[in-house]
Each structure stands twice: as C-alpha cells, then as structure tokens.
C-alpha cells in the first residue's frame, strides 16, 4: 500500500504530477475541439437542410466520410497527411529543413471533424422537431432570417439538441485517448509511461480508466445543470 501511495504521490518519486498534467492535456484537447466541432456541425446541418441540392450533397459527403472512417485512421490521415502536405508546400516556397505538425492541432482537427459530422445529425433532427409555424410566425412579425434564427429557432433548438450533444461530448472525451498514439501527453500516454517504468501496468491503466470515469461523471453533473438551466425558461413540453 505504501508503495502504491509513493508511486502516486506528487513528487520526484511519484507519478501524480505527470498524470495530473495528462489530465489537463485531455481536458484542454476536448474543450478546444468542442467549439470547433459545434460550429462546423451546425453549418453542416444547415447545409443538409438547404434547398440547394449541391449544398446538401456537399454536406452529406462530409458526414459520410467522417462517420465512416475509424477515428484512429482519421487521426493518422490528418497527422501524416498534413505533415506531408505542409512539408511540400514549405519546400515549394523555398524553405529548408523540416516542419513538425503539432500533435495537439492534428488531434483537434481530426476529433473535431468526427464530432462535427455526428453533431450535424443531432442538429438536423433537432431542426425537424421545430414546427414550421415558428418560422412563419417570426417572418410574420417582420423578423429577418438571421433574427429568426437567433431569437426564435436557436433557443428552442438548443433545448432539443442538448441531450444528443451531451452524449457526443462524453464520446469526445473518450476519443481524446487516441491522441496518445501520435505522442500527445494525455492521460493514457502518461499512465502508459508510468506503467512501463514501474512495471505496475494494472495499477496505472486502472487509474487511467478511473480518471476517465471521473471526468465523465463531472461532465454529467455540469451537463445536467446546463440542461436544467436551459429548459427552465421554456414552456412545458
């Protein structure tokens, strides 16, 4: 028991501080991906319900690709693909030497693309839940398209889409574990290093699992608070 506590302490002997740094990386990656994924997902959802066939097709291609590829493969495609692309561009511009793609940014782009294609489906079904009368009423009192979206549709849309988006957030939190493979020091990579050095694999990977569970629980608490808050102002359904 003493040995376990020493291993987990925050200090030169223990791995507590390294793992805590990993937790920070995991959280910041998920938080950085979220707004990007939400905005793109919303835009893709708008594209999917557009009257323009071309726009619908373009949006559908996007979701087909990023929902069909394994997340790990998407990550590799972005990480190595961008590396090669940027390198070639750099040479074309007359640069010398290599350029490194940031693993954090690659993770953000890959996870964001996956998140946004699932989010677009959530937004799309939320749009379907809003009756056409809401648009008609808003146009009838003279609101512009933008104002209608901002003050009439979005507040209702968020309420309908929130459970689906909460679910996607929990999935995103778990998927961040993949970036440990391209060398980002998240929870899983830090615990992996610790387990290799100390030969206590079960202890450290068990702790990694527990940390993900704690993050999921904390998210659930926050998300249900947001849900209560958002639904408090609305008419009973």
């Amino acid at each position: 028991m003493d040995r376990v506590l020493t291993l987990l302490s925050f200090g030169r002997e223990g791995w507590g501080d390294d793992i805590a740094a990993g937790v920070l990386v995991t959280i910041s990656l998920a938080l950085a991906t979220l707004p990007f994924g939400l905005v793109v997902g919303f835009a893709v959802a708008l594209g999917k319900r557009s009257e323009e066939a071309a726009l619908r097709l373009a949006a559908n291609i996007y979701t087909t690709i990023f929902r069909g590829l394994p997340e790990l493969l998407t990550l590799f495609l972005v990480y190595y693909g961008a590396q090669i692309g940027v390198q070639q561009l750099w040479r074309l511009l007359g640069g010398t030497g290599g350029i490194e793609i940031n693993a954090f940014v690659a993770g953000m782009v890959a996870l964001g693309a996956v998140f946004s294609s699932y989010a677009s489906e959530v937004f799309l079904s939320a749009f379907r839940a809003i009756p056409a009368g809401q648009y008609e009423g808003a146009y009838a009192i003279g609101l512009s398209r933008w104002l209608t979206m901002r003050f009439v549709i979005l507040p209702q849309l968020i309420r309908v889409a929130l459970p689906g988006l909460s679910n996607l957030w929990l999935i995103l939190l778990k998927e961040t574990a993949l970036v440990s493979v391209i060398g980002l020091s998240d929870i899983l990579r830090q615990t992996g290093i610790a387990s290799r050095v100390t030969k206590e694999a079960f202890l450290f990977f068990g702790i990694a699992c527990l940390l993900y569970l704690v993050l999921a629980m904390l998210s659930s608490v926050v998300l249900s608070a947001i849900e209560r808050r958002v639904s408090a102002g609305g008419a009973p359904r």
Partner: protein
Amino acid sequence: MSAVRPAVVTEDLPPPPPARRMTRARALGIALISLWAVLGVGIMLFLISSLNPELFQRYLPRYASGLWVTIKLVALSVLAGALLSVPIALGRNSRSRPIAALAYGYVYFFRGTPLLAQTFLVYYGLGSFREELQVVGLWGFFRDAWNCAVFAFTLNTAAYQAEILRGAIQSVGRGQWEAASALGLSRLQTIRKIIVPQALLVALRPYGNEIVLMIKGSAIVAIITVYDLMGETRRAYARTFDFQTYIWAALIYLSIVEMLRRAIDRIERRLTRHLIR
C-alpha cells in the same frame, strides 16, 4: 384605330419555370462540391501516379489478411458480447438491489472509459497478475495480443449491447405482456413469441450502429500489435513511407461501413413494411 391584334392565348400555356437565380447558397454549394471533386480527383491522380505493381503485389495479400482479421475480430466479439449482454441486461432489470447495482456498475465502467484504455488494461495490465494467472492456467490465454483484444472488445460491446437489449425490451408495451398472459401463454412462450420479435425490430438499428462502431473501433488493436487492416496499413507505411497505404485503408474502411449501413437500412425497411409510417 389600328389593326386588330390577335388575342394572346395565355390560358393553355404553363407558367414559365422560375428563373434559377444564382443565390449565395447556390454559389456556396457549387464551390463546396467542386472542392470535394478536386479533392477526389486529386486523390485518384495521386493513387494512379504512384501506382506501383511491385508494391501492390507485395501488400495486396497483406491487406486482405488484415481485413480478414478485422472481420473475425468484430464478428467474434460482437457474437460473444451478445451472449454476455443477456445476463447483464437481466441484471440491470433485476429486483435485487446488489445485482442491479453490479450490472449498472459494469455498464457504467465500460461505457464511460475509452476502449483503448480498456484494451491496455487487459493486455498490459493483466501482466501484473502473471503468477496468479499462471496458477489458474489462464496466462497462456492472456499473453496473446489477439486473445486480449477479443476479450476486451467482448466486455466492451457487451455493455453497449445490454443497454440496447434493455431499451428494446422496455419499448414493448406492458399490454403485450398482459395480453399474452391473458391468453394463457407461459413466461418463456411470451418472451419468445411476443416480446423478442417486437423488441428485435426496435433493436435492429442500434445493433447495426454497434457493429459499425466496433468495426471502426477495432482499428485500435493495431496499437497492441494485432495485424488487422489498420495494423497492416501501419506496417506498410512504416516500411514504404508511402502515404497511399493510408488512403487505401481509408477507402476499404469507408466502403465496408457504407455497405453495412445500406444493408441495415434495407433490412429495416423490409422488416417494418407492415408498420404504418
């Protein structure tokens, strides 16, 4: 008075089609489609220009064997998970508090942690219990990466499938149970002939999604040295540094997942054709 003009016949003519104006949405749509087209053509040109018969000859069989490993892994763990999910789903609905709590804990753990972490926990973590496992005679089983992958995936998908099963059974109305017992059917008969056929209809889509998720998730076994499609791809890339290895893998995964999705759509439409929609 000028000459009499012929009356213009307007009634029989159809209204002119509305002019297809170039709206902003239309321009954006065309721009995005062109972007996709350029990307698609670019990838195709890249694949054609770097076409290398020697590479093909060398890696085609490996990709095929990798694909087979992926399919075996998913099929095995989904089937084993389906068996394991039944007691878990029953446990979730159990009236006994400890059993229900245990089943809930199981589901919460496996749905709340990353599959990658679970796989590491089994593959690397169980090595910590080497002596104990040797005593029970299971060490030989858990030393092998393939067995560990199947084991971890089975436990993981069982948790998801248990929730699908539970949801599907709950979606069948209470009236069905009551009507069956009013007809004098036994509990087993009710489950087999009344509840399960209706529940499976509801569960079909979630089960399909779970299989798709497993196919995509199975790519991570490449990290614990199982040579599935992803593993073969990584090995090929590490040897050739040729980016087309990844593109081929992406095309294969995309077409499998898309075919599966369409097949499930078809089956669902066929099975629910008696339902009014």
